[in-house]
């Protein structure tokens, strides 16, 4: 669709406004991260420090930071993979059969996504302790998979319900077994749903705090959200180093999204499910 020059200009203005809205806090984060610890905060706030320095980055880029980053990647990555797999299997069952028991189970799944985490964390902790899993990746991955599963199942079921069943039926008539139908027909068609669900799991687990805090005790196992607390004392916050760490958390992720977004949006929209 072609745009008139004036509406095009208006939309570009909107884009600029959007960029400011999103980026202003990040700009300030960057500015604080470059401020020397000895330079006090100005009133009114200064957009850029007087004597910018990288000293906060030097302090913040400790070996621990790299460990936290790696831990976060491992835990989130594994959670995304496992949740999406389990959820896709379950969602397929829910989407392809209508049985009273399945309807009942599905309502239980929907209900489970409403449980507040702080109300169930101590019993889960006790189970992890009994299984001798505390302070391991496994404890976090199991917890994350469990708490993200309900929404993931529900999202994927929605996607699968809209896929045409005819392709699967045709394949079955051609003699394909149920597993082949699932892996060769359903999985490729469900790609947009899988990506959307994966993003959801990634968002939730990347920043999860409560479980990560309770289940890990040593520095070697901490994830980023918990690790950033190293800069928060009982009464004071080391803003410079905290913000430097936050910049370092954000940069690789922006880079990845920037290079992948074309593929990413394409993946989300592939299969062109008509609403």
């Amino acid at each position, binding site marked *: 669709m072609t745009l008139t020059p004036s509406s095009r200009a208006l939309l570009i203005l909107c884009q600029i406004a959007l960029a400011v809205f999103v980026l202003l806090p990040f700009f300030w984060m960057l500015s604080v991260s470059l401020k020397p610890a000895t330079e006090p905060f100005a009133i009114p706030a200064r957009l850029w420090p007087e004597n910018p320095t990288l000293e906060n980055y030097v302090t913040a880029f400790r070996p621990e930071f790299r460990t936290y980053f790696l831990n976060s990647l491992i835990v989130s990555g594994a959670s995304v993979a496992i949740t999406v797999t389990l959820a896709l299997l379950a969602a397929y069952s829910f989407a392809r059969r209508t049985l009273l028991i399945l309807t009942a189970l599905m309502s239980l799944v929907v*209900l489970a996504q409403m449980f507040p985490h702080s109300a169930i964390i101590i019993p889960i902790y006790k189970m992890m302790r009994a299984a001798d899993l505390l302070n391991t990746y496994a404890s976090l991955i199991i917890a994350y998979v469990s708490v993200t599963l309900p929404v993931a199942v529900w999202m994927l079921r929605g996607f699968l319900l809209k896929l045409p069943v005819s392709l699967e039926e045709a394949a079955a008539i051609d003699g394909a077994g149920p597993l082949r139908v699932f892996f060769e027909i359903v999985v490729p068609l469900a790609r947009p749903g899988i990506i959307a669900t994966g993003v959801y799991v990634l968002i939730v687990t990347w920043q999860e705090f409560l479980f990560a805090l309770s289940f890990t005790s040593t520095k070697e196992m901490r994830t980023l959200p918990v690790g950033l607390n190293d800069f928060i004392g009982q009464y004071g916050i080391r803003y410079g180093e905290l913000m430097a760490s936050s910049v370092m958390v954000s940069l690789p992720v*922006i880079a990845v999204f920037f290079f992948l977004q074309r593929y990413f949006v394409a993946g989300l929209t592939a299969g062109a499910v008509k609403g």
Partner: protein
Amino acid sequence: MTTKDRWIIWVFLTPAILLMGVMLYYPMVGTVVESFYDTSFISPEPEFVGWEIYEKVWNSRQFPEIVWNSVYWTVGVVLLQNVLGFFVAMLLNQGLPAQGLLRALVLLPFVLPGVVTAILWRFMYDPQLGLINSIMIRIGLYDDNAAWLADSSTAMAAVIFVAVWKGFPFSMLIYLAALHNVDKSQLEAATIDGAGPWRRLIDVTLPSIKEVIVVNVVLTLILTFNYFDIVWVMTRGGPQNATHIFPTRIFETGFGQFRFGEAAVYGVFSILILAVLVALYVIVQTGANKRRRTS
């Protein structure tokens, strides 16, 4: 799927159902049971008290405030996040220059851990040191130090704003995907019929993505209702309970004051209220769809 192949669904279901049963239902049922016992850290011997704690919580001065705050917070965030997410998706779907870069940049807020987001914004809101007041004073919008988070009348709006800033990219992504699936020929037909952009939005785009809207709204409803980090770090529920919502109250009661029985009661109430919110939305939505179809 042929009848003899139907066993496969049970195989597919088992891992997910087992995991949810053990990791979510077992603890939650335990919490519900605990809510009928007067138990706290300092009196670990649970004493059965029936509905007593429920009555105590129900009649407390704080309870109506927490219910109201939770609804205000949830509805505010969900509404704004979805509207903003939708329009940004529209904006970044026009083939304008810098579209690719913006699509990536817009995702930034959601990769930032919640605790850091909260600390960053609490600082931005600081009446003296914060960037927001500094900008407002510079551009002459304001010459006084507004204390956004310290004033009961603005604190909730201020935390909602942050949650929307952090949450809208996710809604945007989902809407962006949905927009790709809107039938181009229908849009063109509408244009030829003389429909302006607004009419095309109402008549073609919105109806064809309505399932996605439902999914997005319900999803953000649930995530927002139980979202904890931002409010806790920015205000701890203050000032004067103005931003106390169920998750902060459950955390404060259980981990801050060691009263497990009461925390469990708040947990049960919170599930009930969230379920009511979701049900209300679904009812309103179905009603609206029916009216649209009959009209």
